[in-house]
């Protein structure tokens, strides 16, 4: 009987200093924030993070966990500039900046076991000057020179999902699956946090088949983490907590220590109480774009 259930901290215990970690979700949506907070509380250091970045990146930067960032953007959407990322970047954080689609392409190359995938994206820009990028000439009659986007291979991918069973079948019910599937395929191992771990029969398959993210063979561990994406959204279960994100963004300097004590140093039970409890989170209205 396969049982991949494990506590949040047991996932953190699988990580090591210097690892390259892909974090799923997109900006303020479906980020595995409970896991990010657990990493922020841990002794881990020198991490390379790959992300379509939001508060996951800012929080790990503010807690001194980042050695390098592989990214196309970091944003809180309604608050365009992520202040903790901004501070780290201005202090000289090592970054590999690329286009959103290049990051997609690098993960896809790794997912396919290829050394690279050709692309035009980046041509004509400063992104192309990065020494990690090489070019390749099309072997066909067009002879076009293209960027050879190298495979981006995380040691570990960390994702947040809506539902999981104990065997690692996972569903993401939100309207956009983002690039979580590619992160799981590209990474050496993938750990997920789930809003609910349920019996397989309760996953609602085959009706929910299009929400089944990836084969369970790619999932190494599943931790139940209700509201584990908060303050980012896990729609349709709950929406972005803009008020909390504003408080998080405003917590600079000494205020960061207070934020960290109250929300990061706390365990998940205390965190949920500090942010207003389950009913308050469920009642947050959908943002208007």
């Amino acid at each position, binding site marked *: 009987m396969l049982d991949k259930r494990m506590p949040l901290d047991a996932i953190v215990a699988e990580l090591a200093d210097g690892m390259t970690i892909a974090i799923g979700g997109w900006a303020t949506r479906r980020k595995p924030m409970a896991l990010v907070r657990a990493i922020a509380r841990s002794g881990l250091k020198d991490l390379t993070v790959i992300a379509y970045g939001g508060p996951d990146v800012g929080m790990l930067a503010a807690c001194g966990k980042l050695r390098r960032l592989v990214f196309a953007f970091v944003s809180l959407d309604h608050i365009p500039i992520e202040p903790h990322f901004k501070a780290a970047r201005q*202090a*000289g954080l090592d970054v590999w900046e690329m*286009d959103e689609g290049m990051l997609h392409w690098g993960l896809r190359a790794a997912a396919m076991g290829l050394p690279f995938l050709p692309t035009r994206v980046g041509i*004509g*820009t*400063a992104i192309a000057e990065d020494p990690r990028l090489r070019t390749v000439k099309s072997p066909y009659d067009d002879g*076009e020179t293209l960027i050879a986007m190298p495979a981006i291979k995380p040691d570990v991918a960390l994702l947040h999902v809506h539902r999981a069973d104990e065997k690692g079948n996972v569903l993401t019910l939100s*309207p*956009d699956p983002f690039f979580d599937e590619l992160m799981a395929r590209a990474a050496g191992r993938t750990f997920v946090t789930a809003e609910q771990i349920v019996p397989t029969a309760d996953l609602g398959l085959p009706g929910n088949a299009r929400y089944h993210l990836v084969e369970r063979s790619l999932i190494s561990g599943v931790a139940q983490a209700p509201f584990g994406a908060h303050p980012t959204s896990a729609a349709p279960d709950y929406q972005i907590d803009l008020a909390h994100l504003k408080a998080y963004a405003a917590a600079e300097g000494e205020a960061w220590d207070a934020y960290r004590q109250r929300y990061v140093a706390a365990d998940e039970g205390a965190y949920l109480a500090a942010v207003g409890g389950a009913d308050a989170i469920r009642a947050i209205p959908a943002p208007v*774009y």
Partner: protein
Amino acid sequence: MTQTTATLADLLVAQCAEVWRDDPEWLATGITPIPRLGASLAKLTFNPRLMITDGENMLLEQPAPIGPRDGGPVVEGWAPYARTFDNLWGGRRHALVAPVQIDRFGQTNISVIGDHARPKAALLGARGFPGNSISHPNSFFFPQHNRRALVEGEVDFVCSAGYNPARWLDGRKPHRLDLRRIVTNLCVMDFGGPDHAIRLVSLHPGVPMEEVRDNTGFDLAVLEQGVGETPLPDAAALAIIARLDPHNIRAGLIKGNPAAVRPASVRAM
């Protein structure tokens, strides 16, 4: 003087709409409220073929008003990020975006101010600008036309490709590089000068050409037949803009919410 109730924000929405006037049936993406209102106005007036999104991951049958609203608009399709990439790489999109800097080549920056390794100000990151710029037509919006935005030399970090052969691989123009228009709070420009140089097309009512030149970090070509005055949105367009922005969010987007026609007393300044 022309009589109108239009504000400068209204005029800018109408000019943003113009960038999509002749586009075929593809995705019109306007980033930040004024360009987005422009895309919606274009769809509701002269170009109903355009596809637009809810700003997230659904294609909408009709544009949604900005700000709080009752009820959900009718969804006509799905546009998650992976599919948006596939669509834009296929070229069926025209984006109107609001970078922080642009240079004489049309190269833009939203990543950093200053040195990339240790920036004076870290902004968003390159986002999808590199891919957008070589995959489909792009236009630009600058709410504050000045030399910090329209810079001398090159932008601090080139996020999107432009008409700068020094940056092209093998000297070959990137695949579908096609820069269309620049709309600012002072004027409308295009890339119709010699070797795609940025060219002044029209000045907003009451704006002198010297003011544009003084606030631009590079030389501007001018339309051969003469630089015109940016036309004012008509009553029908103003009514649609008001309907698309029922909370008048646009009034807070341009400092002081000036009128579309600059009064003579301001002209002298």
